[in-house]
């Protein structure tokens, strides 16, 4: 998994509770991404980061926030979880400054919101 870990790997929580997912990389890559994967939708980008403290929204960012205080860590927070946020969440990383860039994915976190 290209030196990417995600924690926790599985989580069950209740509607309205805050949840934070962590992505940690050992590759020193500049770019980091959070995706969610749902049946029939493929992978959809939630937020991404292009450096420490530099983040931007993806196509499905409502209800999510992110933070990146160190190169190696990218956190995804659900401020108040809803059942529609039940999904599998993947972190990805890529190097910087190239014409095109390959993204490498972590093992995923399966989140269930009851």
């Amino acid at each position, binding site marked *: 998994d290209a030196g990417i870990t995600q924690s926790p790997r599985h989580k069950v929580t209740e509607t309205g509770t805050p949840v934070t997912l962590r992505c940690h990389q050992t590759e020193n890559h500049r770019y980091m991404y959070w995706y969610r994967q749902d049946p029939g939708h*493929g992978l959809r*980008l939630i937020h991404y980061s292009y450096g420490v403290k530099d983040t931007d929204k993806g196509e499905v960012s409502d209800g999510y926030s992110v933070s990146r205080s160190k190169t190696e860590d990218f956190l995804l927070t659900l401020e108040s979880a809803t059942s529609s946020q039940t999904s599998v969440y993947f972190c990805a990383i890529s190097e910087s400054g190239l014409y*095109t860039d*390959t*993204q490498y994915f972590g093992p995923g976190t399966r989140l269930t919101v009851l």
Partner: protein
Amino acid sequence: EDQVTQSPEALRLQEGESSSLNCSYTVSGLRGLFWYRQDPGKGPEFLFTLYSAGEEKEKERLKATLTKKESFLHITAPKPEDSATYLCAVQPPPSNDYKLSFGAGTTVTVRA
């Protein structure tokens, strides 16, 4: 909005029965097209990047090709271990980010 469509949704093959998966896209000025393999319960695993029409890449029994509107992933003489979901993603024209748009995937099952 960029559209990436993969077909078929599912493909069942007998071991040794070659076939092709399709990925069609509407983005113009493509920067790159990516193929990934995903096993159940795991993250996508990078296979290939294609940059321009006419380009081909190979890895073991897999061969990816690219035209101006679509890409094909050919599986030659598949084995049961080739069973997986294959994802296609496109990277649109130059911008300040490297965002990808993914298709929904093709799930391949190879029977022994």
